């Protein structure tokens, strides 16, 4: 059971348990993490699950795929080097302890 910590823009941390194989988006949405909506259910269609991967985990998580690149470029307000779509990150034991930062808190 990998554990994931979401850090909000105001510094509020929320640690949750995930199941191996879950997408980071699914875990966030089920736990109601503000700022992660996942409207398309993980279909890489909406860019409503934008996160910033913490520096310490970037090499383990890896870079965005091609579709994700376009969505991030055009679909999010503050794209950074560490930007990923949470729906494209599958959680593994190797990612236990993962820390990500959430973006703006849409209603």
């Amino acid at each position, binding site marked *: 059971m990998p554990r994931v910590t979401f850090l909000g823009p105001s510094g509020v941390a929320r640690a949750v348990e995930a199941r191996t194989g879950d997408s980071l988006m699914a875990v966030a949405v089920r736990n109601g993490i503000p700022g992660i909506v996942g*409207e398309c259910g993980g279909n890489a269609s909406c860019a409503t699950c934008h996160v910033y991967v913490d520096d310490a985990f970037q090499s383990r998580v890896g870079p965005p795929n091609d579709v994700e690149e*376009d969505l991030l470029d*055009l679909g999010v307000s503050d794209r950074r080097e560490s930007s990923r779509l949470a729906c494209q990150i599958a959680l593994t034991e190797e990612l236990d302890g993962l820390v990500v930062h959430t973006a703006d808190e849409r209603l």
Partner: protein
Amino acid sequence: MTGGALVVGASQAGVQLAVSLRRAGYRGPVTLVGAENHPPYQRPPLSKAFLTGKADATTLHLRTPEFYREHGIDLVTGERVTHLEVDADGAGRARTAGGRTLPFDRLALATGARPRRLEVPGAHLDGVLHLRDLDSATRLRQRLTAGATLVVVGGGFIGLETAAVASALGAKVTVVEAAGRAMSRVVAPAVSAFFQEAHARRGVEVRLGAAVAEFLGGQGRITGVALADGTVLPAETVVVGIGVVPRTDLATDLDLACDGGVLVDACGRTSRPSIVAAGDCVAAPHPTRPGQRIRLESVPAAIAQARAAGATLAGQPQPNQEVPWFWSDQFDLKLQMAGLTDGYDRHVLRGDPGDERFSVLYYRSGSFVAIHSVNAPADYVAGRAALARGASIPPEPAADPTRSLRSLITPTAAVPAAQ
């Protein structure tokens, strides 16, 4: 009264309404009541990953039980609201089929839609299914075995997605569509033609312009589908996917204005402005055609409308300005759509459908209004971004697939109309 807020309907829109009430700072009690015996879940996978068996029911849940507890959302499942009384201030009480009374001082309707029934002889035979909720998807899943014979009535999104899953699982599938082409309400003829052919290439028989005359059965069970032209298609299972009807009964009882859905403004207010509504049950202002209303029947629309309605119910009216978007997965084909095509007078094909990778851009009176992309997510993303910004993409260069669509986004809204 101290009844708090009552949200009737516990699916995508209802959950979002409750969440948005909280996010907008509403501190009173929130009750979310749903007719189904399941906690709120995602519906789109019911005709996709869930139907293939790749996702189980627990992965569909929209939120964890802890989430509802932590946010003070009292989730009541398995209780269908049958009667509402609302006083002049918008407060009142709901009664459920199970005999419960739920008081409230503000009310939101997210009652959704029910599948449209095909009124032909034999419609009640065992094995004639509709696909709308988790229970119906579970029943259908059990029947989709290799070698099973399935007839899908309706060549829309639900019908074609179901056909694709069943065929991939080894069933023999025939799609029967009354119109002259598939998905005719939404997509251009070129997109219809592509999907008809793509299904045929993958072993699904698609019959167009075919009306169902009767469902045939023996001992109460479906055995075949008789078409108006006399053809009989053998069937062990039939899925009827011919659209949905908004559940407006409660709204009608309250004398709320309804016309193809509960009429709401951009902030989600019904004709009694203290009552809000969102999701598949509403007809909301058309995003680009002033004075017209439209029922969108999609998750993104449900979420956007519920966000607005929730904020409004919390006392902070907030118009929904989201560009409508949709998606459909059929086999390995990902159809992504942004904007609305209704009334389009020009369209441009970008790429070769023969490659199973192309887009169609739609224009109305010279304005770029929608894009449909098949396995071309970069096009879709660019089109959606342009629509969200009120920008355009000129049609002539867009037809050249070697040019990046995003590089063609231009802030000028209008392009010349077709002559």
